């Protein structure tokens, strides 16, 4: 099969020698060689091994003559139908003319060397080597996997079959999931509403009762005895009211806690949940009902509920009521509230910083393409300059100056962009450092910090490269212009060596540094520090790997860097970090 796929001409060859006369494609047995040949030609569309191009539509008469001869040889019945098919299909095929190229390998087609074949499906011309896939087609040249005949076709037709290069089945269950969830949660939502209603009634009721008993008593300015009495009355009324809001489960029918199913006994007492009325235990381990909760707390944590009574009485601590709720009710009423509160709560500092970092990164990502475009422009400009530039003499570079003047605007633009980028990187770095300095509140945050650290260093390493590369453009240009305006606007952070002669006159002219310069030097210093850090690491690394020659070269560079950064620090003086 492999060889038959490799080349039809080859496959037809060896199969003739096989005594059983099997078709190499469909494995049907044939009594004679001729029958097999005919079968191959008709059913599979293969030519014979002389490389004859009878299946190729040609403009020339000679090959069609050949075709006629061949056709005359074969049994008329079979040939007749085949010819009918062929004629019908071939009308749309690409015709062969001298100089036509194979649609796959783009080689010039030649009947003798490459062989010529039309893809039976798309009809395009190919050399024989590239038209060897087989596919089932019907007699109109359309894909028909069931009733079609095996015919040769090109690779693109073969691999564009439905399902050939398909992979990655997924099944989205979100819809079904939400549907099930909705139906399942319907009951829970109703239950939650019911419980919330009861909670509102309960808390409002307490306040009302309080007003009734205490405030009235206070207004009447009755004695202490009366106060005690009203307190007892209040408690009694409150209990009755609780039972009124929620029908309490009958104690006697219950032997074990509704939630944890522990048996009640002398120590394991029965308690009623004030919202659902079920009997639960007060175990400290299972927390089926976690003690009594102050009403104020209950109200505050569900502040969105439509309470009618004012909270001021509760807040002043006058109504001191504690209510027992079972864990089920707490989960139903309070857990969702807590969850949504957490979700909309301001994010932890780390996340907050991270979001700002992302914004800066976005700015950098957006600016970089512009910058790179401008850089490419400047570079071509410079090349043109270099080609047509006059030799740079002592005071005789007026021509050059005019040439540069045109690009000066571009360079200013470039420098501006660069400055913006450098500033962005600076902010990005600062943010990263701040983020890393935030003390993590839990191990997860710590791990997130570590991850962000990796990402940010990767980001900087990746994006800062074009900034480094552009140093040379600005330098040479600014060196040529020698005007301090463009020199100051360009930031030569990356090549201190070439910049050195410029900085000195600058600093000698201006005793006090402008804000802009301070900024510029600071940035340069920052980059220098970063560089020396990288080199230090590299030195460490080469030392551990015992590549000492590398290490010495590196340390030489390091000392150069340190020199420069010290110089800068001197320049900056008090303005330094």
């Amino acid at each position: 099969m492999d060889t038959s796929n490799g080349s039809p001409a080859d496959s037809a060859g060896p199969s003739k020698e096989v005594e059983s006369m099997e078709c190499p494609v469909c494995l049907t047995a044939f009594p004679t060689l001729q029958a097999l040949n005919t079968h191959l030609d008709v059913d599979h569309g293969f030519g014979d091994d002389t490389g004859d191009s009878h299946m190729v539509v040609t403009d020339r008469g000679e090959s069609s003559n050949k075709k006629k001869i061949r056709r005359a040889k074969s049994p008329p019945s079979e040939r007749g139908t085949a010819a009918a098919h062929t004629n019908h299909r071939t009308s749309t095929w690409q015709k062969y003319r001298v100089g036509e190229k194979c649609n796959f390998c783009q080689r010039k087609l030649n009947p003798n060397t490459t062989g010529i074949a039309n893809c039976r499906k798309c009809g395009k011309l190919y050399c024989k080597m590239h038209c060897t896939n087989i596919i089932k087609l019907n007699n109109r040249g359309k894909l028909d996997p069931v009733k079609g005949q095996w015919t040769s076709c090109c690779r693109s037709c073969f691999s564009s079959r439905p399902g050939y290069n398909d992979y990655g089945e997924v099944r989205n269950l979100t819809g079904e999931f939400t549907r099930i969830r909705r139906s399942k949660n319907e009951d829970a939502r109703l239950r939650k509403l019911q419980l919330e209603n009861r909670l509102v009634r309960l808390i409002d009721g307490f306040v009302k009762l309080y007003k009734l008993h205490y405030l009235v008593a206070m207004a009447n300015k009755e004695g202490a005895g009366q106060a005690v009495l009203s307190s007892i009355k209040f408690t009694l009324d409150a209990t009755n009211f609780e039972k009124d809001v929620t029908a309490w489960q009958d104690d006697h029918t219950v032997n074990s806690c509704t939630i944890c199913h522990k048996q009640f006994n002398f120590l394991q007492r029965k308690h009623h949940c004030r919202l659902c009325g079920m009997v639960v235990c007060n175990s400290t381990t299972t927390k089926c009902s976690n003690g009594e909760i102050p009403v104020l707390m209950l109200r505050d944590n569900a502040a969105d509920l439509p309470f009618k009574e004012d909270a001021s009485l509760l807040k002043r601590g006058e109504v001191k009521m504690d209510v027992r709720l079972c864990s089920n009710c707490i989960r139903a009423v309070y857990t969702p509230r807590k969850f949504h509160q957490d979700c909309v709560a301001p994010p932890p500092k780390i996340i907050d910083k991270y979001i700002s970092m992302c914004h800066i990164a976005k700015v950098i990502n957006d600016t970089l393409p512009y910058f790179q475009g401008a850089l490419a422009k400047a570079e071509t400009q410079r090349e043109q300059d270099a080609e047509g530039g006059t030799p740079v003499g002592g005071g005789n570079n007026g021509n050059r100056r005019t040439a540069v003047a045109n690009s000066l605007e571009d360079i200013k633009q470039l420098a501006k962009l660069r400055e913006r980028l450098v500033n962005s990187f600076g902010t990005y770095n600062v943010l990263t450092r701040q983020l890393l300095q935030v003390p993590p509140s839990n191990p997860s945050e710590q791990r997130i910090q570590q991850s962000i650290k990796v990402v940010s260093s990767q980001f900087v390493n990746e994006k800062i490269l074009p900034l480094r590369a552009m140093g040379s453009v600005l330098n040479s240009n600014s060196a040529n212009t020698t005007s301090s305006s463009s020199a100051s606007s360009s930031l030569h952070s990356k090549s201190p060596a070439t910049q050195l002669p410029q900085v000195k006159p600058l600093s000698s002219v201006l005793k006090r540094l402008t804000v802009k310069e301070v900024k510029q030097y600071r940035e340069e210093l920052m980059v220098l520090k970063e560089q020396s850090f990288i080199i230090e690491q590299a030195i460490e690394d080469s030392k551990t790997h015992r590549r000492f020659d590398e290490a010495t070269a590196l340390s030489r560079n390091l000392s150069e860097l340190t020199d420069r950064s010290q110089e800068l620090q001197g320049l900056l003086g008090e303005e330094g970090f």
Partner: protein
Amino acid sequence: MDLFAVGDYYVGRIVNSQVKSGASFGTVDHESLGGIMDGSAGSPRVKVLLLDKNTTPTLSVCATQTELLEHEIYLIDTVENAERDVMRQLKCLVYVKPTDETLACLVRELQSPKYGEYHLFFNNFVSKQQLETLAEADQLEVVVKVEELFQDYQIINEHLFSLDLPRASSDLVVDTLVDESYMKQCKDSLLSLCMSLKVKPEIIRYDQESAVCKSLGKGLLQDIEKNSRSLFDFPQDPSTPPVLLLLDRFDDPLTPLLQPWTYQSMIHEYIGIKRNIVNLSKVPNIEAELETVTLSSKQDVFFHDTRYLNFGDLGDKLKEYVSTYKTTAQGANSVDTMDDIKEFIEKYPELKKLSGNVSKHMTIVGELDRQLKDLHIWELSEVEQNLTVHGDNNEDYDSTLNLLRDARLSQYYKLKLACIYMLRYDDFHPQEQNSGEIGKINEIFNILKESLTTEDINYLHKFRKFFVQRKNKALRNGTDASANRSPEKDDLLTELARKFNTKMDLHRSRLGAKRNATSDNVYMQHVPKLSQLLSDLSKNKLSETKYKYLNKSTSTPTNAPTQDVIIFIAGGVTYEESRFVDQFNEAMGNGGMRVVLGSSSIVSTHDFLNSLR
């Protein structure tokens, strides 16, 4: 049928997960699904990735840490870990296998969610009941997406997958009794494979001698037919029905017993590679940073190119690699001017990566070489290979005995050598005690009794009995392809292997091993049965008595060319076989047969021999 592409697709699906429509967290919005765009989709949001113990290895092979970080996945944890911190500003991507255990964890998670929003991905079919359980638990409506991906298997190479289910021991004794849960896992994983490749196996064939294959095939067929309407309705060309071929490791026990000689398989044999991680901590004088290294044929181009090379070719490639590195490093060494240093800094990360990779491969190859010498593998392997390909002759027998007597060879290798001999030449006719064969076998036992423990001797007896019975049974059924079939000339891969092997001689001398040079590579003479099977399959000549059809329907044309083939070997596959499949696929080229090979596990000689104990 490139599994890496499948893996990448699924990983991308997980890490890029976004909710296009419907309610984001916080807004309980039931009715307007498909309405509002999620506003938070574009804004940066730190993501958590939750895996379970099944998906961790699957994903770690497919995606690197860097890839995950690029997609703002800054926290990776397992569902099983109950000690995770509550961070409700985070978005959580869950990728798990829908097992009951994991489901229980998920239910717990959803009842008290630790993160703000959940995207659930399952690596296999989720039953309706499981979905209901989850939906019931999700009272806070934190789940915004549920999706089934189908990658319940590990991707090792482009055409090699493993289920990482080492076969339970004692299978040797009770071959007919099949572990139910093991079968179910195999079946589910294979179904997920079919789904992920969008292949509906129209033809399932199995090794008729293997009870495991038969029941596995039946289970698969049942499930496929049950789901054929809803799931297996891919656009497919019915003229080339995909084939699923279920084989049994015991049908070719020789291949996993022979010492391997290609890079990937040697690492597996001598050092061990699991989930793309090679543990080098046992290598003497190892540097701390090289103790565990990752080796992925997807990311490491050098490894991708060399994994199928034999040890000799590998040595050459590595030499080339090192010299490339040296020239690159040389350039970096001459850092004199500021410009140079600038360049150096730019190149430094790349250079460092390269140097790391070079030293990694140097270490591994060095260790392999050391073990080869220390364990006397060169001598052993030559005899092993000779035994497998030559007919019965006294020369090989004598060298076998010599090796068995050799005190330097470890017990394990002696046992293995004896096993190989038994497999090849033992006919086990108890009534013919005095024939020459039996004498030879007895002699081997006598020699081994001096060096091996009684346990090992018992094992050898058991091994002998088991495989000889198998062989005899196969002979009775007339289905043992190797017994009544002379090797054919047109076996594509044998040819390839021969071509491949001739190169070996050239390199062997350079490696310092002084062998008497023959025209063929003596270490890689054996060709796995799989190779013959592949060429038979490509010619549609695969024995129908040996590999029975499970679902041969009348509608599928018998003469259809075979195109997409999934081969599953129950009980373990070797990297050597993976190499053959890879070469086969390459030889077939575009448009030919495409084969994906897989197994319950990838076995080294140790794994295989021990699995029979």
